[in-house]
């Protein structure tokens, strides 16, 4: 399930699917996973987010194209459309053994409904569903809150979550202690639910510190892509 590169950990199934509450960081995790997998050859990154109008994978389509990541999303003229447009290429990624894919699913159970429609096509034994949690998000600060959303998403997809991903952060100001605190909450959920925490997502600047402080925790360093317009140049 995980591959180690330079001491850090990355998801590595043929099909890696990220689900979770709105604003938990699924898109950043999906982009970063695709980029790591692309070091071993072409990867397809599927933008399955039909509920979030702005911060979606499709925003960085051109940037990723030069790095062996092909983004599957609606055609250019519908990129900003407020419609749940899904292309036939999505089925191709799921059904062809020679393709590797990363799926970024929309937030909450509402966003996960789309994944439910692809449930019959999820390739047995070749995929993993990762449930991403940021315990700094309002209303997802306790184990009980997290259990409730996992239940709702599992009902929407009609498939069980395989792994939890700890992605606790408050953006660029995140301190290592915040990350570790979030991981502790997720450990409780993992124990109560009997599914493992796959790894902890951490912005790259503090990934090494987190790994040192929280020995034994697999850490996935993240480069952040969904930045507001004033943090970009052109």
């Amino acid at each position, binding site marked *: 399930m995980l591959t180690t590169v330079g001491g850090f950990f990355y998801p590595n199934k043929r099909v890696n699917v990220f689900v979770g509450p*709105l*604003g938990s960081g699924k898109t950043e995790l999906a982009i970063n996973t695709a980029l790591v997998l692309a070091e071993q050859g072409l990867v397809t990154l599927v933008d399955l987010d039909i509920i*979030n*109008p*702005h*911060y979606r994978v499709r925003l960085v389509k051109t940037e990723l194209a030069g790095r062996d990541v092909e983004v599957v999303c609606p055609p250019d003229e519908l990129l*900003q*459309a*407020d419609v749940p447009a899904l292309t036939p290429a999505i089925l191709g990624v799921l059904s062809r053994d020679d393709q590797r894919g990363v799926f970024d699913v929309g937030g909450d159970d509402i966003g996960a409904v789309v994944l439910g429609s692809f449930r019959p096509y999820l390739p047995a034994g070749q995929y993993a569903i990762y449930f991403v949690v*940021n315990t*700094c*998000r*309002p*209303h997802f*600060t306790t184990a009980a809150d997290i259990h409730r959303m996992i239940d709702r998403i599992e009902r929407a997809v009609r498939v069980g979550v395989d792994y939890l991903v700890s992605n606790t*952060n*408050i*953006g660029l*100001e995140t301190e290592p202690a*915040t990350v570790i605190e979030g991981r502790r909450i997720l450990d409780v959920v993992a124990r109560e639910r009997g599914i493992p925490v796959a790894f902890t997502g951490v912005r790259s600047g503090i990934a090494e510190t987190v790994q040192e402080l929280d020995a034994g925790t697999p850490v996935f360093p993240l480069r952040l892509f969904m930045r*507001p*317009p*004033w*943090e*970009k*140049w*052109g």
Partner: protein
Amino acid sequence: MPKVLMKGNEAFGEGAIRAGCRCTFAYPITPQSELTHFLARRLPEIGGVFVQAESEVSAINMVYGAAAAGARVLTSTSSPGISLMQEGLSYIAGARLPCVVVNVMRGGPGLGNIAPAQGDYWQAVKGGGHGDYRLIVLAPASVPEIIALMELAFDLADKYRNPVMVVGDGVLGQMMEPVELESGEIRTAPEKPWATTGQGDRPQRNVINSLHIVPEDNERFNLDQAAVFAEIRRREQRSEEYRTEDAELVLMAFGTVARVAKAAVDRARARGIRAGLIRPITLWPFPDESVRRAAAQAQQFLVVEMNLGQMLEDVRLSVNGKRPVHFYGRPGGTVPTVREILDEVSRIMG
């Protein structure tokens, strides 16, 4: 209190709750739907009420009713929804009722698109409904400021018995920023002896409407309101100034664009151009005092907006021909970049 990572749209809702608002009537529309989603979940948890109305016309009239009964009440929508609400807003203003309306603006005119825009400035500050009325209009530029201005919005609405609009756009609504939620008291609405809460011990029942059949009566009502508007103009202008002390070129922008402009000011300064920024926080009352003060020293102004030049007119009125006022805008749902603004600054400053 530990910080939480909050979306702008959630912050509009959180700010309303902290202001003591327990009633929201709204109809979902992108790019503000997280706001209604958030309040639909939160309000029932704390003894409040959220009703998804069958349309924006219906939502604003539910607001009219709740405001008349003395509640702190909110509705939220995006541009086309605001257009639908104009009749109700005029009635609410005509009935002197406090309420708060959020507009997370999108690209127009018409159906337009769901991308971030500021094309509703005129509609917000010059009135889109009929008659001589004013909305107090607030324009936050960050997620923490959304919470602070939502609290202010409810206070101003009650203080002046006037509707308040808080405007954002898709960038601000969708983005996430850390917020430190101070623990502490949730505000409550002040006493409203005029509210229609049943006659009780009052000698006469309270009646709320916007009807003044005799023209002279209506004229008196309008003149009384003019005095209220003058007081708001005098007391409630708010703006943020950034590096304006020695600025030769003053940029003016609100909301999302102000943050892009701020980044451009820093880049310009690094190139030796003395640029600064005035960010109106109240779009009405427009902070003309700050602009007039700046015009005493700055040689030129550059207004940057996500429209074809709407706030531009208020800047020109405030500058009153004393300095050249330039404009750079991207309409229809596009956001000016740091590079574009810097190019414009460089062109002006030669």
